[in-house]
């Protein structure tokens, strides 16, 4: 039992470090809230959007990388998926706000 625990603790540390491989949604920053996307909102709204994005989408499929689709496609994708993911309108709006803010970050990050 101790061996199993050790293996899993080790795996958790390694996997926790695999953010780049993980389609890891970037954490919300003050810059994101100031990004000026059409529906960008408060830090709280963006945090809520990030939690919903990472929580609801993976009920059916793996999380897509935010840069995988152009920014203009994301509102339609979220709207299309929203019904089967049981998302309320305010939740869809929070996800779109977060994804667009994060998408803007992927375009302006150093080295991009």
């Amino acid at each position, binding site marked *: 039992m101790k061996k*199993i625990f050790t293996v*899993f603790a080790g*795996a*958790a*540390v390694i*996997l*926790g470090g*695999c953010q780049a*491989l*993980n*389609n*890891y*949604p970037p954490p919300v920053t003050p810059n994101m809230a100031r990004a000026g996307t059409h529906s960008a909102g408060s830090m709280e709204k963006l945090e809520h959007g*990030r*939690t919903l994005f*990472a*929580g*609801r989408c*993976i*009920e*059916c*499929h*793996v*999380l*897509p990388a935010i840069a995988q689709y152009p920014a203009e496609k994301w509102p339609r994708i979220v709207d299309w998926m929203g*019904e*089967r*993911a*049981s*998302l309320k309108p305010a939740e869809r709006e929070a996800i779109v706000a977060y994804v667009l803010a994060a998408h803007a970050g992927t375009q302006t990050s150093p080295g991009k």
Partner: protein
Amino acid sequence: MFGGVRHFTFIYEAPTSAPGSVELENWFTWRRVDNEDTDTLVFRHEIEYGVTDRFQASLYFADWVYESTADDSGTVFEDVALELIYNFTNPVLDPVGLSVYQEYKGGYRLFEWESKVILQKNIGRWILAYNATVEAVWEGEDLAETEGEIIQSLGASYEITPRFSVGLEMVHEIVLPEWNDDEDIRNFFVGPNVSYRRGHWFVTSSFLTQATDTSGEPDFQWRTIFGIGF
């Protein structure tokens, strides 16, 4: 509204259903024991409901079995059950997704209690899941016969497209008749799975063969789950 897709059939995943979602899940498992010339088909019909963001409840409203042996065959209604899953952490945002599972099952001269710890990690297109399960069964007259089982299962699923995944499942069982390990019963099953989803439904199927050589235990188990959201 859809509750979510199962990428495995013998392994549970950490995310719980969206709050307010309702899903009907039906599954069958075909088990074949060659040396006893026995085929068993187990059917389950289950309603799953997302209670909160982190908590889901399911009712197995009918578990029934068709069994065919060399001498006889027949169908019997077995039990109903309540399944509860609570999620603590997310398999993408946190180092490991963690949920706990509790099930209570009751039937004619049968009571079963099952607890699980569910771990999951999503890495890119991969979903890795691990379950540690303890199962206790009381059955027979006055529920005097007891059996325990300690089960560990591990699976990996790779998403080829957002609608289609393939993977592998492994199940290791330690069977404890009368909570006693004298008979040293160990079973290990391994095999592939496929999963397809579209709109408000999904179908997932696994075919596991026994890699050990335990007499009286299934040589293979084929399980298919069909889920549809309302």
